[in-house]
């Protein structure tokens, strides 16, 4: 999709910001982030103490700030409130500015020139090498960031799983334009089936019995477990797809919602799979690098699909189905394939989630999960890979940050969604094509372009 690249530079503080950021390539930002996490690792503890914070803020100080706001909210309900805790708000902001904002801006800007030269050099070579270098840097940043504490690690893992899950739903709700509610069901099937594979085969378990196999490199079978879960989810999708794609309209929404409830109560009642308690004790195989690789591969494959002509056929079916048919598109096959494809990746995400949490039970995959993933898809933007990444990351972060507000969290997030729907009806970054070449290419300064 064409985006207008020759926008006139905006004025005021936005213009200044644009001018400041324009010459920095993706590589520069990654190096800036690396500097941030290194600074935090080296000096974070001391700085936090200096600012009067109990320890290093876990999510950029967001949790600290909302803890205080949560305290205020609880005060209204009559709980005691420490006025001194108000100081944590400016302290957290100062910490964020000193550790993240300023180093990122300064390092990224200072290294812009050499980073551009390197990016320019990489542009001339194979795209694969360039992508791998950028990904390695990104992984290094994430890894260092999570070494500070375990809460960060689990939050990041769940966030990455959410990215894959959101993207897989965007294929159906965004690219194909059908409204599917069964996605948590597919995730549940993926989670259970992959757990069945790993726990059933390699772990002594009360529900699933003794380990059937045992060898030292058993974790190498983890991709197989995930794919097994994904395929099971895709097959389940076929059951939903056959009746609902015979006709157009709201059938899919209704049938898929019914499917979600059926799957949930099925797992609740299947005593062989642990009933309402589910399965626990999954082997700890979903480490950060494994999740990172699976999510990157997932984004790559999904993006390949939606940018191919077979994937574009989905957009055609969404915008005008009879025109698509008249132009030789096999609409039924297209819809079925996309639906099963989306379900497959939801199943993969489910498998990852089960092994991150190391338990799985039916209650995880209820209507709340559906609301969460729909929020991520619609907040981030329909029909857009970047949108899904942004949506999943921002809603997960927000969900974690707003945790101190307890029940009020479920007032703030829906309100935010309503605002997005009013001002950007299709989401923040909708209908944008994800072009890795464009993202990685070196940037000229704004003056040169004009």
């Amino acid at each position: 999709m064409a985006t207008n690249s020759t926008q006139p530079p905006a004025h005021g503080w936005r213009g200044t910001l644009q001018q400041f950021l324009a010459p920095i390539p993706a590589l520069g930002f990654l190096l800036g982030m690396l500097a941030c996490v290194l600074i935090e690792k080296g000096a974070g503890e001391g700085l936090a103490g200096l600012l009067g914070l109990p320890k290093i803020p876990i999510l950029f100080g967001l949790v600290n700030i909302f803890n205080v706001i949560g305290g205020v909210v609880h005060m209204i309900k009559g709980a005691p409130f420490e006025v001194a805790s108000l100081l944590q708000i400016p302290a957290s902001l100062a910490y964020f500015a000193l550790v993240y904002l300023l180093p990122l801006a300064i390092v990224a800007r200072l290294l812009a020139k050499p980073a551009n030269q390197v990016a320019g050099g990489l542009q001339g070579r194979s795209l694969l090498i360039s992508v791998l270098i950028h990904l390695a840097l990104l992984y290094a940043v994430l890894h260092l960031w999570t070494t500070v504490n375990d809460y960060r690690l689990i939050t990041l893992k769940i966030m990455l799983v959410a990215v894959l899950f959101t993207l897989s739903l965007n294929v159906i709700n965004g690219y194909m334009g059908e409204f599917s509610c069964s996605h948590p069901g597919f995730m549940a099937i993926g989670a259970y089936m992959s757990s069945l594979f790993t726990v059933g085969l390699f772990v002594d378990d009360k529900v699933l019995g003794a380990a059937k196999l045992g060898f030292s490199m058993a974790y190498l079978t983890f991709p197989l477990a995930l794919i097994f879960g994904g395929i099971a989810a895709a097959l389940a999708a076929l059951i939903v797809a056959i009746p609902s794609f015979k006709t157009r309209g709201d059938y899919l929404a209704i049938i898929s919602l019914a499917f979600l409830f059926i799957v949930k109560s099925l797992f609740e009642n299947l005593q062989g799979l642990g009933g309402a308690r589910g399965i626990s004790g999954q082997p700890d195989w979903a480490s950060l690098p494994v999740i990172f690789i699976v999510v990157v591969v997932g984004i790559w494959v999904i993006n390949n699909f939606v940018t191919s002509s077979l994937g574009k056929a989905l957009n055609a079916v969404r915008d005008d189905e009879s025109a698509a048919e008249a132009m030789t598109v096999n609409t039924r096959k297209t819809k079925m394939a996309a639906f099963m494809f989306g379900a497959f990746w939801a199943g993969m995400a489910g498998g990852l989630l089960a092994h991150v949490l190391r338990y799985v039970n039916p209650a995880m995959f209820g209507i709340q999960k559906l609301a969460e993933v729909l929020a991520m898809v619609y907040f981030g933007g329909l029909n857009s890979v970047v949108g899904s990444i942004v949506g999943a990351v921002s809603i997960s972060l927000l969900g974690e940050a707003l945790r101190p507000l307890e029940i009020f969290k479920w007032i703030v997030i829906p309100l935010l969604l309503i605002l997005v729907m009013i001002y950007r009806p299709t989401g923040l970054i909708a209908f944008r094509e994800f072009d890795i070449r464009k993202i990685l290419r070196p940037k000229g300064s704004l003056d040169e372009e004009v």
Partner: protein
Amino acid sequence: MALLQINHMTHYFGGLRAVSDFNLSIEAGQIRGLIGPNGAGKTTIFNLITGIYTPTEGQVEFKGESILGLQPNQIASRGIGRTFQDLRLWRHMTVLEHVKLARYSKLTYGLMGAFFDTPHRNREEHESEARARELLQLLGIEHLADQIVTNLPYGAQRRVEMARALAIEPQILFLDEPTVGMTPEELTQIMDVIRSIHSKLGLAIFLIEHRLKFVMELCERIQCLVFGEAIAEGTPDEIQNNPQVIEAYLGKDMVET
């Protein structure tokens, strides 16, 4: 043997007979017109041939084979391209994407090719893009390739639809009122476009039209449809002077006086 041969095609919508005993034979490379007042069933005939509806009775043969009961996409990929009276473009897609997508049935890389970005896929996508650009050039809209269709003026959207229909490499092109809503200037332009695609690609064209001047100038043979029945067939001159046609268009009183 005729390219498209229709014998005794009849269609009912419930109890209403929309098309009755319609016969047609179009030779390769011929331009044919179908005229008639509003509601005569012209678009229904298009929809019956292209598989959106299945005729209640009758035979439809294309290149000597029956295409009755096939899905619209199967019929299209055998070589029948069409445009729609109410433009049916895909509103979030660019011009180039429209034309490329109509080559769907020519792609052989399959789902695995789509998922894993294979060389096979890259080759076919490039071929498809090159072919799409040629068609855009033929229709004079190559400069609009990267525009989203909804941003384009009406005349350009018509051309996009035609380019898209040509991308399926049809042997016959159905045009459903290609001049509707056009200014006289756009009208002469689109006439030139139709003439040039006819001469360059050598395909047969079957068009529905309201503007008689347009049909008379373009078509070799014309049929006139009234209430689902073909009341006359002939060359433009014959049709113009046929009392039944004049009656259908202007009313009985005008003919008598």
